């Protein structure tokens, strides 16, 4: 019975030029999105690999040099673009691509691709995920608005029910018929994206892409079910098909186009992130205030820690005072250890503001599942802020390793020479290269768990409302 209903519905959709037209448009846009996404991904990955190689070569060619001077020159940590960015670039165009690992400062990532993009990019997004999240609801609404309303107007619903068709089966059949089209489009697009992601220039773990893709399919399926249920709900509640269409199209424009932007703007105003001047002046003020006096116990403890770490054994204050050391090197490393806390706290506060903004957007998602899908999709694609934070934290660990190695070399080998000490050109080879392991699937899943659950809740509530509306509509 249900399969017969689905077959009948699909035949009607096939005959409806509007549905076929929107499907073709969707397919075309997805194809364009895939091509541009693939070209962007492969180009960015190629550039990042080349830049990392060049950086390594330049660093090794420094010749004899003071290690602290080399620490200022620093290294660059290039962020590899996740393979599934071919499907959903998420926030990555608005995140820097490289972090300068230098002495004395924990820098933010720089060079956001969006800065070099045309202004128009802010008006619309043609990534595959952007197209799907925008047009799947439109497609489902165009297919589903007449599900009950048109049949009621034509009298065919009354005929079907009076000839023995159970309303429950009618509802299920129509729901599956409509939702399957949206979900089918999403599944095809995600599958093709995953295949492309697996053939990305940078080495990728196929199983990771596979599991992430399955997660994305679930997310988009929930999204599709939620909007299909909304279509059926409105179709069952409104008097005419035209009214249903009007209400649904208004709902689409509001919940998919307008509300995500409102949510973003409101969140930003309620939980503002600091401007760069404020961020740096406050951070350096904290650093100045947190630097202990050189004679204080805290400072001496930091000196002991630095030296014990360098020598691989515990040292006493007396030993620190008596040792033949490059005191400038010691003092530089002590300041790194002390300043690291202030930088850590400042960045924690910044990311906390991002998280508060995300929670605020989640609160808005009661009016729009598109916001939740955006979080789920970019989180699973590895292009969200949480993934970037992971990269920034790994880069900071690498910065600490590099600067510490430089300072320790100066401290232990340059006694009495202060900044005149020069390290051999071979020394640079002992500095490890930055190798980044992107966030694991479990990390990604944890970061989007709430959004997933809320999306499922959205779908469940919409289904319940649709069923209630279908059951209580006046058929006769």
């Amino acid at each position: 019975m249900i399969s017969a209903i689905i077959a009948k519905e699909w035949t009607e959709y096939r005959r409806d030029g509007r549905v076929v037209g929107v499907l073709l448009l969707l397919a075309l846009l997805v194809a364009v999105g895939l091509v541009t996404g693939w070209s962007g991904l492969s180009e960015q990955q190629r550039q990042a690999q080349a830049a990392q190689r060049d950086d390594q070569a330049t660093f090794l060619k420094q010749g004899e040099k003071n290690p602290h001077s080399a620490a200022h020159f620093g290294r660059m940590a290039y962020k590899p673009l996740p393979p599934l960015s071919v499907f959903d670039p998420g926030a990555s165009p608005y995140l820097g691509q490289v972090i300068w690992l230098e002495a004395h400062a924990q820098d933010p990532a720089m060079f956001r691709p969006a800065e070099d993009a045309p202004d128009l990019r802010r008006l619309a997004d043609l990534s595959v995920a952007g197209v799907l999240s925008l047009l799947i609801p439109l497609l489902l609404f165009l297919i589903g608005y007449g599900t009950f309303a048109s049949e009621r107007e034509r009298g065919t619903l009354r005929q079907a029910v009076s000839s023995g068709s159970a309303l429950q089966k009618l509802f299920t059949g129509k729901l599956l018929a409509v939702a399957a089209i949206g979900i089918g489009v999403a599944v095809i697009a995600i599958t093709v994206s995953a295949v492309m992601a697996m053939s990305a220039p940078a080495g990728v773990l196929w199983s990771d892409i596979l599991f992430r893709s399955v997660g994305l399919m679930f997310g988009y399926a929930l999204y599709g079910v939620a909007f299909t249920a909304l279509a059926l709900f409105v179709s069952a509640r409104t008097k005419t098909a035209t009214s249903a269409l009007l209400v649904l199209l208004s709902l689409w424009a509001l919940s998919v186009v307008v509300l995500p932007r409102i949510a973003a703007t409101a969140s930003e105003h309620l939980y503002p992130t600091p401007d760069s001047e404020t961020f740096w002046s406050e951070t350096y003020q904290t650093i100045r205030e947190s630097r202990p006096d050189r004679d204080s116990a805290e400072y001496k403890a930091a000196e002991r820690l630095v030296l014990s770490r360098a020598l691989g054994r515990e040292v006493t204050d007396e030993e620190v005072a008596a040792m033949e050391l490059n005191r400038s090197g010691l003092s530089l490393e002590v300041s790194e250890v002390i300043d690291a806390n202030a930088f850590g706290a400042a960045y924690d506060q910044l990311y906390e503001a991002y998280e508060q903004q995300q929670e605020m957007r989640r609160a808005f998602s009661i009016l729009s599942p598109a916001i939740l899908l955006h979080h789920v999709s970019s989180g699973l694609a590895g292009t969200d802020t949480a993934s970037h934070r992971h990269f920034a934290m790994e880069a900071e660990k690498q910065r600490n390793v590099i600067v510490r190695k430089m300072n320790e070399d100066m401290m232990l080998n340059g006694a009495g020479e202060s900044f005149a000490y020069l390290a051999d050109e071979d020394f640079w080879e002992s500095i490890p290269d930055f190798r980044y392991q992107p966030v694991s699937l479990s990390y990604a899943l944890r970061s989007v768990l709430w959004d997933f659950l809320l999306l499922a809740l959205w779908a469940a509530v919409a289904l319940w409302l649709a069923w209630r509306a279908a059951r209580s509509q006046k058929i006769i």
Partner: protein
Amino acid sequence: MTFSHMISHEWKTRLGRPAGLVSLLFFAALLVFGAVSGRMERDTRLEAIATHHEQIASAMDNWLKNARLLEEKGSEAGVPPWSGSALDVTFSSALPPGPLGDFAIGQSDILPSLGGLSLWSPDVRLFSKYEFEDPVALALGGIDIGKVVLLVLPLLLIVLSFDILSAERDTKRLGLTLAQGAPLRALFWRRLLIRGLFVLSAAFLVAFTAFLFQTGGVSLAERLPYFAFWGFTALLYAVFWIGIVAFVASRNRGGEVNVILLLIVWAGFTLIVPAGITAVAESVYPAPSRLAYLAEAREAENETRLQEADIANQFIIDHPEMLVNESSEIPAFVRTAFLVNSTVDEATKPLLDAFEAEAQRRDASLAWMRFLSPAIITHALFNDVAGTDSARHRRYMQAARDFKSAYREKAGPYVVAGQRLPTEEFAALPTFKFEEEGFDSLLRRHWGALAFLIIVAALLLLVADRRLKNIKGPNDEDSG
């Protein structure tokens, strides 16, 4: 039926009904939200700029104080020996919001609006530490009054007017109306005009209030030409959409067909065509690699350090007027930093020029492609009028680099010679000021696009009118 009767009738039958009223109120609320959001964004920038100026001024006061002490008391001054170094002079630079900066956020939330100009930083790192806005919010895009007009105003016109004729047709009243001799054409245009007027009134009421009360310290006289231009563009954009609605509604099809067609046209013009054009522009004119730029800068930095002595000698040969202070107390790394940064800037200048050239080529091609969608024309114009477009930001960054370069010419001989910058020279140094383009250049850039919009809107209205004339009633002679 007089026009006021028509208004009263439209209010009772459509606009004053819950659905119509809610739509209008929601639109008005969105406009207010957009206006306030734009103001907050602009005020945040103004505050950041004020803080920036204060911080740099305070640092430079300190520089001057120490330099004077050194000049007066020499080594007895008790200040660091490198005080008064020309390398330590930092200039504040800022791109102030345009007179109508609260009307469009544009690219101002993503591109730098301020930065300290110092010879300690090569150009590649001049604007590298400012990226703190929430990237997700940036990706989703903020709302301002311009975006509300751009996206929601046409939508509301569609929702309120798609059935301007089909309402009669769908309820089988059209034949009756025509049989009664009602002037269908006049009825159509009056209805459309009234519904459009309500939408436009809400938009202009909020925009005018924002114009009057969100000045941000700019005089109304200064804001007026920009606001007038903004208003004219918004009006034209609305007329274009009224033309589209009239064009579709006058085909005399069912409401369902009309609304689907109009919605697809809306999605096409406001979302799909802009996204497609962006993809094409980015593929045809890809921005040069920033990563390659950085790699080039680091390579140059390293090479310069390795050849510092030769470079310093060459610099001294190029500046025979310079008297090298052999007993200078300014540390050697100051000279090294200057030479390295100067060389890096010279070496990477062709790359920066390539960025600018590519951006200009892309802008030029986009200037043609904007004719494919009125939303693109309006979007570009709103951003340009508000001074939040990327071209203005690029001009600012270029001006900042040029200013730094000019100072480098002046300060270089002092730094390499190990001399301090005399305080009277410091006092005579210029300050950075962004040179705004005149209002006339704004008009020059956009008059063609606006003329195009007028022509298209007029054509749409004319075709709709012709179609309406051809709708025959049962009493017409040639009716079947």
